[in-house]
């Protein structure tokens, strides 16, 4: 389990990954786990053969397939190395009575 700021990457078994489609790359060709709309800063993942995919039934649920190794970077946080495996991506939330909402990192 790896954490970079408001994003957590949780190792999962391959069987736990649902039917997914690739998450489109951004205009700079990057794979983005989460982005700050005001700062433009982004949690970006990359690595040989690495794929960022999203649950077909819930595009907000993302997974990372890391065949050999990967790396997560961000403008304000230290980089993180990801060993081979499958990961679920979770963005931090905050409690609001009666609901919850994402954290503005």
């Amino acid at each position: 389990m790896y954490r970079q700021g408001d994003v957590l990457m949780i190792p999962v078994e391959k069987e736990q990954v649902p039917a997914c489609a690739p998450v489109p790359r951004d205009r700079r060709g990057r794979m983005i786990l989460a982005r700050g709309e005001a700062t433009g800063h982004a949690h970006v993942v990359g690595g040989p053969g690495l794929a960022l995919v999203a649950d077909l039934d819930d595009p907000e649920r993302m997974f990372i397939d890391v065949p050999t190794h990967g790396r997560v970077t961000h403008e304000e946080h230290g980089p993180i190395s990801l060993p081979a495996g499958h990961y679920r991506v979770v963005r931090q939330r905050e409690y609001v009575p009666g609901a919850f909402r994402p954290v503005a990192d």
Partner: protein
Amino acid sequence: MRLTHAQEAMAAAIEDQWLAAAVQTGPAGRKEAEAGVRAAYRLAGLPEPERIYWLGSPRAGALAASLLRAPTPGSPVAALDAGPVSPAAGAASDAAAGSGPAASVAGPEWVAGVHAELRRQGWAPGESGGAAVRRQVRTEPWAAARKAALAALGADGWAQLSAAAGRRSWGLVMDLIAGRLRLRLGEDITADLGDAAPAVRMPVLDAIYGQHDGTWLATFEAADRLCPDAGLMTRLTGLAEVARHSGWWWAFERVAVLTERPGLLERDNVGRLHRGEGAAMQFPDGYGLWAWRGMPIPPGLAAELPHLTLDRIRSEKNAEIRRVVLEHFGYERYLREAGARRLGTDETGTLWWLDLPGDEPLVMVEVVNSTPEPDGTSRVYWLRVPPETRTAREGVAWTFGLTAEEYHPLIQT
């Protein structure tokens, strides 16, 4: 077809441009927008509008649209035309706060302002703009382009392209900006206009979203780039030109009503309308939306924000408003000044507990950011967690949807 990474990146770049247009502030490009309107009519096979009116906000635009939509004598909108001064609900407070009564026009002062503006641009009360042509100008070209894009790209290609060029926009623009504006506009009109409100609210549903239409135009522009021979943008060029240069607008047979973009638009880091010291979205005619982290706040409250006290916060009955004032006051300061209890500290942070009379307790974790700031200090931040939380670890784990036992990051930065 199946898109390559480069094609997806191209689509994302186009979406970025339309996202920028959607949050663009400042005066409309009137010449370009008007040319776009005329093109949209021509492309729909309609005669160009005889006159184009410009208003300062979507609120003014909705009223203008309701006045131009053939008001029948005796209708509540006709009463707004030139009726006696009989302030509707909400008008009284406007008059009290504003500067004098509104000439011979019923309703709050901004109604008189719209009348004066329309007259200045050549409108005579009772003039009708004819029937709405939104369907011909916007809906039908959109539907035709969608059909053509599906045929050109295939269902899979279209789905992939929609994800690459439209997924972020819907959430950021339609949910967090245009949707908020539409909702708030309806509420404000209802509060201000009494009997005439339903007639003025109707155009809110009938608006063409101008700069906010980029959310769907982006996908078609990207599709057009992939299949240049399919003519996917051909019938949409007029709409796109208006969307690049102005705010919401209305299309009628003989006239079009265009509106300015906001002069100011402030959002937080996840894209929600957010500002403490004024409207988060403010139009040049003065119409504004106050919001705190996406939550609309009454303008009266905004004036109080700089002078909040513990008693004022404690006495707030509305839970959502209390959350706004708490955040504005600062959780840390409130916990300190109100005498919060420290429930414990572990390697994830410190858990604080404060009873709120008549409400669920305020429970927060104080967390130290793992990556030091450039000056070597570490930023502390606060996260509100469910009231049943008993340890800091449990609280932080909850923010990621995990239990305290499950939450064990090997590395954090």
